[in-house]
């Protein structure tokens, strides 16, 4: 098998854990001797100062890993990785965006969970801001979306925000949702 090495490389790359020798053997339907040779050759090729990855024997299997000396850069990468908005954050943002101005208590009523921490985090990112106080006893703060919100979603203004009913394929559901919403208060 002339491309046995390439196949091993593809498998190791695509695996989320170390691959044992016998697993590789059965996956590639190779014989023990050629697999051992190909693995050694591949390991040798990776073991070269110009490479950023090594082929390591680990936990009884084989795995491709970044070279330890490049850990600082890899860490920089993973730390700066664009984390997705968490589910809680997206939900809270959605409620604020569509129901603004809205108090924290109202957000929590709709979401069914404490939302103070998420609201604060969203305010720090300027996705949500304080837009006033509600004219009821206690004068609770009213929240609305901030400038960054429009930027993040590429909206010209709040009127560009799609309504539930506008998205393709769920006209009936959307209608019942809109009705539910008005009951919430």
């Amino acid at each position, binding site marked *: 098998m002339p491309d046995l090495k390439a196949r091993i490389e593809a498998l190791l790359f*695509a695996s989320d854990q170390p691959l044992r020798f016998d697993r590789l053997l059965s996956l590639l339907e190779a014989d023990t001797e050629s697999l051992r040779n190909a693995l050694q050759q591949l390991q040798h090729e990776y073991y070269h100062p110009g490479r950023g990855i090594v082929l390591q024997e680990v936990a009884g299997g084989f795995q491709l890993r970044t070279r330890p000396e490049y850990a600082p850069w890899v860490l920089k990468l993973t730390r700066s990785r664009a984390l997705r908005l*968490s589910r809680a954050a997206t939900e809270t943002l959605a409620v604020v965006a569509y129901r603004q101005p809205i108090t924290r208590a109202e957000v929590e009523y709709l979401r069914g969970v404490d939302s103070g921490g998420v609201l604060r985090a969203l305010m720090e990112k300027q996705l949500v801001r304080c837009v006033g106080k509600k004219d009821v006893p206690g004068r609770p703060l009213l929240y609305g979306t901030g400038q960054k919100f429009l930027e993040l979603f590429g909206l010209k203004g709040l009127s560009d925000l799609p309504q539930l009913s506008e998205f393709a394929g769920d006209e009936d559901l959307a209608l019942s949702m809109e009705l539910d919403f008005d009951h919430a208060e």
Partner: protein
Amino acid sequence: MSYRIKLEQFEGPLDLLLHLVVKSEMDIYDIQIAQITAQYLDYLSLMKAHQLDVAGEFLVMAATLLHIKSRTLLPASPRDEENDEGVDPRAELVQRLLEYRRYKEGAEKLEAYPQLNRDVFIRPEQSMQEEGPSEAVPADLNDSPVSLFELVEALRRVLQDKPPPAPHTIISSPWSVEQGMRLLRRRLNGEEYVSFEQCFSGVTGRSEVIVVFIAMLELVKLGQLRLVQLNPQGTIYLYPQPELHSDRCVAALAPHSCEEL
């Protein structure tokens, strides 16, 4: 039926029409409308014969074809010629078919490209990799891939999880804030201080507790009450201020304040 067509293989009426045109080796720019209409209708009856639902779009196209056919058969009236300058009644259909054919070709070409998770693979998430603490909000918002669709989906989720509004979720307290304030005045009457918990003793019901609490805050705001906490996490005490029982304030409250006091 002399020809066999694998049923259900068409994406829609345009797809079917294109197939018929190609099969009949017709010039797409010069469609024999009578012939193609007959074939099209044959196919629809074939679908019906197989008890397949014929989608509305197929029927609309049948009507369109029949309409074009009738217009090609009629001699053009002089007025038509003036207005349309003899526009071919097939023109729009031909253009739609051409356009459809382009995108169908585009789709076929795309289909042949190596596709992620079908032909090519990227590194999967590593099962042993340690994960950083999941922040509520990403560090760099500009890179965070949240779409408007996801936002709407999130809202849908929130609303879906909500049980249908029942009468009991509507706060319809039998008490007003004024009544809550009267209750507090009564409790504090003649006392140097009263603990926070004591104020609520005998107050049953969530909405009543809320009303009393709001009344408490109102009194604090009016300067008639002070809240004192000696230790962190410790008991909160209410200290009535002289203004609490002043006549002026009582008079300013609801007219029926005498009933309960």
